Structures are given as C-alpha cells and as structure tokens.
C-alpha cells in the first residue's frame, strides 16, 4: 500500500538505472535531506548538534569507509582507528604548513594521503585472507598510533602532544573549525561532506568498480577467472575505504572535538566502527548510517536511563554496565538479525509493499 511499485514503469535505460528507482524512495530521501538541512539546524540546540549530530555524521562517514572495505570487498580490517588518526594528523600538518589553503582541499589531501597509507597496509591482502588479514591490519593500528605519539613533528613539536585545530573558513565568514565556529556551521559543513561522499559511495558500489569488489568478496578465485584483477580490486577498495576513513578522522579532529590527539584513535575506535558496520548491515550504505546512529545513541541512552527512572548510580559502575549492555546487545542483534539493521528496513519495506494483505 505505502510501497506500491505497481504502475511505476521504467521506460528508459536512465530510469532503470536511477539510484532510487521507486517514487517512495525519492520522496523519503527528499524528506530526510530536508529535515537534515532545514529542520534540524533551525530547531536543534547546540548540545544536540555538537554532541549528537556531529559524532553521528563523523562515524557515519567512517562506517561508510569500513563498509566499502569489509561489506563490499570482504576484507576485514581492524585498523580503522589508525586510518582516522592519519586523516586527522595529515590534515593538521597540511593546514599548518599551508594556512591559506581552503579547508576542503586540506581534507581532500588528507584523505588522499590516508588512501596511500591504506594501500600500503592493504598490500598483504594480496597474499593473506580473513582473520590473518585482520590481525595484520592491527600492525597498522599499533604502528601508526605509536608513530603519531612519538614523533613530535606530527604535532609541530607541541610539548603536551595534544593540539587544538586551528580556525579555518570554507568561505569568508563561514568558519567551520577552531573555537570561533558555531555548532550550526560545523554541522552544515560535516553534513555537506557526508552527503557528497555518501552519494559518491552509493554510485561507486553500483558501478563497475563496486561490482568487481563484490565479485572479489563473494568468491575471489572465481572473480579472477572471469577476468577481474584481484590486485586492482582489493587495493582500490583499500584506497577508497581509507580515503573515507581519513576524511572522517579529519572531521573528527577539526569539526567535532577541535583537538588532534593520537589517543582518541586507539583500537577501541576501530572496534566501535566495526560494530557500526556489522550492526548496521554489511554491504549497505544505509546500514552505515543506521549503525552509526545506534552506536552513538546507545551509551547516551544507557547513561540517562537510570537517572530517568530515579536510580542513582556510580559513574564507574555505569561505565561497566554500559560495556555489559553493549556486549549483550551486539550478541542479541547478531542472533536476531545477522544482516544488520539495514535488513530490518528491507523486511519492513517488503511488508509495506503487501500491506494490508499478509501474503
């Protein structure tokens, strides 16, 4: 009923290949974009924007990056945190070396640099697979974080190792980083970056390159036999995934926390993004967003819930309970729906298509 596709005929190839071929999807996306660009900045408080929406957007981008690698190309990586750190530190070095360069180019360059690092650490994927590769990417995680911590050059020889992001503007008067930037401006900037990159990713995964990734993921040897070059496919997945994660790291450091420090990108950050991808849905662009929303919201809900029903709890205990609930929820969600929340939406769509008839 709500999702009736009957009567929506596709008469041209262009219509058949549209990103959102169904009218309802187009309307839905338009409404979401309208809310994101119009309603939220107009009505939301600064707290909501800077403590909920910004981490959500940053994590969505990181999850999108990991999803390209893991969900579409099937290469398990535990080095997400380190690649985010690469993006953050590269952006810091570039913007302090070239203060005149527009922050958008800084982010793009930082992403490109991270992509190069990602390709380097992706090289072992040509020889090794599965969990062996996962552990190999931990080498990236520990080595890169150690390097950013130890080598003072990355922090411009700051004594504390923690540095604040310098103020930068996208357009004159539209500051997006540094202490003078308002939460609304930061939000618009992050939202813009995420929207553009998500659209790119959506197009990428349904084009030739995305299909080669999926062929490699589903069966690499068969893919090789039908003429897909595994090296090109795997390394391009590593490069593009790292680009996304690098930009996410730069956004994290510049737009969300306004500080650049290596400790923010430890191995737990890698796991956090991995959870988002798995809970949201492997191999789904929508899933990256759903997973990010879930993991960002969950700790806040757990922290607020006892107080809301009038139970006073120790913060340390609350922290432990948060871990417990998160762990249990991950297992429960995996058991209930191993394909993640994106699959739930898919099931919902099927139901809506048939509603009100059960069959």
């Amino acid at each position, binding site marked *: 009923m709500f999702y009736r596709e009957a009567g929506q005929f596709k008469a041209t190839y262009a219509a058949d290949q549209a990103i959102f071929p169904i009218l309802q999807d187009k309307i839905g996306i338009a409404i979401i974009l309208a809310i994101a660009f119009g309603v939220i900045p107009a009505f939301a408080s600064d707290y909501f924007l800077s403590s909920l929406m910004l981490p959500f957007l940053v994590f969505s981008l990181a999850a999108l990056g990991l999803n390209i690698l893991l969900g579409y190309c099937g290469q398990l990586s535990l080095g997400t945190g380190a690649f985010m750190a690469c993006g953050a530190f590269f952006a810091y070095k570039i913007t302090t070396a070239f203060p005149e360069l527009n922050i958008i180019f800084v982010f793009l360059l930082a992403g490109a640099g991270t992509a190069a690092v990602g390709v380097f650490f992706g090289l072992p994927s040509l020889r*090794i697979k599965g969990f062996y590769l996962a552990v*190999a990417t931990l080498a990236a995680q520990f*080595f890169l974080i150690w390097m950013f911590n130890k080598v003072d050059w990355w922090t411009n020889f700051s004594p504390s190792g923690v540095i604040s992001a310098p103020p930068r503007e996208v357009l004159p008067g539209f500051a997006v980083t540094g202490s003078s930037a308002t939460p609304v401006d930061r939000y618009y900037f992050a939202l813009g970056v995420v929207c553009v990159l998500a659209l790119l990713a959506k197009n990428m995964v349904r084009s030739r390159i995305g299909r080669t990734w999926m062929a490699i993921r589903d069966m690499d040897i068969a893919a090789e036999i039908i003429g897909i070059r595994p090296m090109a496919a795997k390394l391009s997945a590593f490069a593009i995934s790292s680009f996304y994660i690098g930009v996410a790291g730069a956004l994290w450091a510049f737009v969300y926390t306004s500080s650049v420090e290596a400790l923010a990108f430890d191995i737990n950050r890698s796991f956090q993004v991995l959870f988002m991808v798995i809970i949201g849905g492997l191999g789904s662009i929508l899933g990256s967003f759903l997973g990010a929303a879930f993991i960002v919201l969950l700790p806040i809900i757990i922290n607020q819930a006892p107080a809301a029903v009038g139970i006073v709890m120790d913060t340390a205990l609350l922290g432990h*309970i948060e871990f*417990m609930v998160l762990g249990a929820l991950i297992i429960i969600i*995996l058991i209930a729906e*191993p394909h993640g929340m994106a699959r739930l939406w898919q099931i919902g769509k099927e139901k809506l298509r048939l509603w009100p008839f059960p069959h």
Partner: protein
Amino acid sequence: MIEALFITPFVEIAEYPYFFLEVLISGLLTGVMYSLVALGFVLIFKASGVFNFAQGIMVLFAALTVVGFMDYGAPAWLAIILTAVVMVGLAFGVERYVMRPLVNQDHIIMFMATIGLAYFLDGFGQTIWGSDVKSFAFDLPRDNYQLLDGEVFVNQLDLLGGVIAALLVGGLAIFFQKTKIGRALRAVADDHQAAMSVGIPLNQIWVIVWSVAGIVAIVAGIMWGAKVTVQFSLSLIALKALPVLILGGFTSIPGAIIGGLIIGAGEKIAENFWGPALGGAIEDWFAYVLALVFLLFRPQGLFGEKIIERV
C-alpha cells in the same frame, strides 16, 4: 640514524653478551606467557573455527574471579577450583546463548559475537569484582636465580611460568592425541557436518573446548596476574597473543608455543637494543610488524594448515 639502527645494536650485543643473554632469556619466558594466552585461542579455533576474541578478557575475568574468591576468605586452592567451576559455567552459557543460535553463520559474525562477549565479560567482571587494581595474596617465588657467576639473572616466576606452560602443552597434546574426546575434537575441527553424521555431539564438544579454554585462561590469568597485578590492562595482553597466533598458525598448539617464544624474545631484544634509536616503546607494535612481514612469506604461519582453495 643508519648507524644507530644497523651498527650500534650489534656492537652492544657483542660488547655485553651477558646482558644480551639475560634479555633473551627473559624474552623467551615472557613469550611462554604469551603462548599461554594464545593457546586458548588455538583450542577454540581448532575445534570450532571461531576466532575467539574474548580469550584475553577471559584471562582477566578468571584472574579477577580467583582474586575475588580469595578476598572472601577462600584459600588459594579452593578459589582456583571455584573459578574453574565458574569458567565451565561460562562455557555452558556461551554454548547455549551465543554459539548455538549462531551456528552456520559466517565466520565474521561469530567473530563479532565474541567481541560482544568480550565487552560483556569486561563489564560483568568489573561490575561484580570491582575495577581497582588487585594482587594475589598467595606467594609465588619472585627471586632471581643467578647464572654464569652472577652475570645473568633469571626470574623464578618467569621460570615457573615456563614450566607450567610446558606441562599444560604436554597435557593438551596428550588430551588431543590420545583420548576419545580429543579425537572427537579433531574430527569436529576438520568437518562439522561429517563429525555430526558419525554421532559426535557438536554442542557438547563446544562446551568442552570453551571449558578447556577457560581453564587455560585461569592458568594464564594467575601467571600474568602475579607478574603484573590483576587489572583491566591484563586483557590487553590478549592483543599480544594475536601476532603469536599469526606466526604459529591459528590451528597449531606447538605453533602457539614457538610463535610465543619468537615474539617474546624478538620484542624484548628489539626494545632493548633497537628501541632507543627509534624513540622507545617499540614493544607496542614490533610483534605485529614482525608477524606482518612474516605473513608475506608464509601466509599460513609456521605450522598452520596450508590453505588449499578449489573452485
């Protein structure tokens, strides 16, 4: 820089051979401790193909439980037995509530579930036993032996760890090779379905391996806890066990031991002789980079099964 990396360390090794020997021995014995943690991984991977990320937390959890029972006044032997009961109970719980509902899922899903389990146990253990740093009340030998006219010191606790690990590995090898259950475990590892069709109960096998892994975790937890006190950072040692696994191969018990020795000795030597030139704390990543380089030449590890792919 070149000189500090390629010449000075060798000169130092040649000048102070006793110091080198001491570093080597302490590295090897630390490596044995890594092997203890790695063993738990190998057991579960061998018998169910599940990469159990929770093993490190299980080590922490076991150590916390032993200390917790002893704080309530239980003598050491009773605390260890009670902890063993808890770990077997945990094995039943994991089989019933995690493994069984997820049977036949992708390996990555199982892996994620064990990360979930790791988070759960982490929070659960600290909720029950508290998160402050604890140490064992019972006495383990901590003095140093002196070898070669007092030039080389060997820590007794490390040595004890080595002996216990050797006994454990010997016991596990006999268990896997000679007993009926061990044979069943190997059959399950080879092929789940074939094992089931000849009447091996998969669920029981899982309970057994998780129990054995839990008991290995107790041993590892006590040894590590005695060495570095029982606190959250103990679970990070599990991350050190991962390069050991890569080096040794995920399915090989001797591989876990030899991998542990190589990693332990390698990282201590690297830290002591090459560390200063690189700015120190290279222990954090040296093991991983060593394992990564090694993988490029031998993707299945030292003793891992060769991965044969058919189309």
